[in-house]
């Protein structure tokens, strides 16, 4: 084989992998993922904030937390989700908010897989709605969790503080001071 010619099947695959890696590390990708995650969490928190009674029932059904913390968890978690969602969209404390989202998603994934695969029970997710009548999902839910989890890892690592509200205001301030 001619070493001077990198073409061939292997070369193409390598090139594609490299491109994929570049896309994954790109700050624009981080911006898109940030928006997706932010809107998702923002949307997810609203119904839970509106109906704490239902949501606490769902948290209780997971049968993972001791019963005396169920209500406090159900009252406060949606607000943490809401703040993180807003911060991700606005680009405020990006590392911290994406880290929190990452941890939350990891906990949700573990809790769901624990119930689906180990206990073999399919319960209400309580992800986007506090309605007890919502359909149960199980495996589908886990798939979604893992995708979102990957997105949060990407945002945490490669956001580069690109297109953030604080950065925007900083630039305006500089411009005004330099005039």
């Amino acid at each position: 084989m001619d070493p001077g010619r990198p073409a061939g099947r292997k070369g193409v695959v390598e090139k594609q992998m490299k491109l994929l890696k570049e896309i994954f590390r790109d700050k624009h990708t981080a911006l898109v993922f940030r928006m997706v995650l932010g809107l998702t969490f923002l949307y997810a928190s609203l119904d839970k904030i509106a109906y704490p009674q239902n949501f606490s029932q769902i948290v209780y059904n997971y049968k993972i937390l001791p019963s005396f913390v169920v209500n406090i968890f159900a009252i406060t978690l949606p607000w943490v989700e809401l703040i993180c969602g807003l911060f991700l969209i606005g680009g405020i404390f990006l590392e911290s908010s994406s880290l929190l989202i990452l941890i939350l998603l990891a906990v949700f994934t573990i809790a769901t897989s624990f119930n689906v695969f180990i206990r073999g029970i399919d319960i209400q997710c309580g992800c986007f709605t506090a309605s007890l009548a919502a359909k149960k999902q199980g495996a589908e839910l886990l798939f979604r969790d893992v995708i979102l989890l990957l997105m949060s890892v990407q945002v945490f690592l490669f956001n580069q503080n690109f297109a953030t509200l604080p950065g925007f205001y900083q630039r305006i301030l500089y411009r005004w001071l330099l005039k």
Partner: protein
Amino acid sequence: MRQRQSFSSVLLKAAGIVCAGFVIGILNNSFSPRGIELVGNWGNKVISDSLVVPNSYEPEDPEAVTLSQALKSFESEKAVFLDCRVKEDFDSGHIKGALSLPWEEFEVYFPEVKSSLGDAKEIVAYCDGTECELSLLLARELAQLGYQGVKVFFGGWLEWTRAGLPVEKGS
């Protein structure tokens, strides 16, 4: 390129976000008309239960217990629950923490279970429900072997699951 912040400062801000969520959540809950108690009253309680025993039950047999008594033993975590049904039934669902001791194969399974019974203060035998007498046969056998605190929960799997009490799957 902008310098990355130290991980501890990232963690500190994350803790701040959690605290903010916590405070806002509690405040919102106390002012909201849909607010709930901070510590909920979860779990189950039995408000009425009955003791139904099979005709073959004799006064000198091991004590028969109701659902609420069985639940009390369960919550004390000092009782060992023995499931007398066949292994397949046990695998597809049983009282949480129960051990499998199918009456039909007592000799096969008893050596395995024996070690866990050593210092048990209470042993609760159960099977499907009142129609099932395996638990009584097993309890008699254990009492004869000299075990103390042997009880029969005739309500069994049926009453336990109807009440939505803790169960688990697998062996």
